[in-house]
């Protein structure tokens, strides 16, 4: 892996069937590249939670992925309502998701904590009314 591998994906809004497609594609790519299984799982979980969040809260968005020899960086951006209180949102169990999302098995307030747990670096750039950009870095 001398060069940088770059991939871009669209995350469609309100499409619960295809939500996770981008994370699945990245996971398969990492398997093909022979990345260590524990690194793949961490990346897959963190990206999948971010992708689900973009579908649930962000009206869909985009995923930009860069794989280098020593790290994978995933940028998930949406133009949704933004996160009003990020500190609160980082707490396990805190959620603003509606019941319809809870019925789908998400919205239990574990998404952001799960991302933090699995990423080596997690940067969240958000403001109310301005959307959210989540940058996940996992060291390979």
């Amino acid at each position, binding site marked *: 892996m001398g060069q940088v591998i770059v991939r871009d994906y669209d995350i469609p809004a309100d499409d619960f069937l295809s939500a*996770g497609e981008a994370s*699945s594609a990245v996971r398969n790519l990492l398997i093909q590249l022979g990345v260590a299984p524990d690194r793949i*799982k961490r990346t897959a*979980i963190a990206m*999948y939670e971010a992708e689900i969040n973009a579908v649930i809260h962000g009206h869909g968005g985009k995923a930009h992925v860069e794989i280098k020899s020593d790290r994978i960086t995933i940028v998930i951006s949406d133009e949704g309502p933004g996160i009003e209180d990020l500190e609160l949102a980082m707490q396990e169990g805190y959620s603003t998701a509606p019941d319809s999302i809870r019925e789908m*098995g998400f919205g*239990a*307030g*574990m998404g952001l904590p*799960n991302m933090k747990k699995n990423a080596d670096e997690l940067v969240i750039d958000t403001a109310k009314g301005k959307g959210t950009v989540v940058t996940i870095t996992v060291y390979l």
Partner: protein
Amino acid sequence: MKISEIATLLNAELYTVNHDDTADIKSACSADLMSDVMAFSKENALLLTGLVNPQVIRTAEMMDMKAIIFVRGKKPLQSMIELAEEKKIALMSTEYPLFEASGRLYMSGIRGNGY
């Protein structure tokens, strides 16, 4: 245990063909919240759940799981079966409730690594 042996034990209907029946399943987790599966479950090959939607299969994929059992007689939708075939994940449905299905597996030697 093999997937086919688990299906027999739980009197479960098996919906997929493109899964790995040589896999030796030793551990499982039972949950309806998929974020909890990702937060608390460790190396588990089998997921038991009462939740029926495509994200259950996505979650199993991200967690490297081999099989999903829907409890309380819940059945997967055709779109979910197709997704599972693509991911080589087995889908089963049992009439047993979550507690009893989990208990029967535990009695047969299956253990859990978180949830």
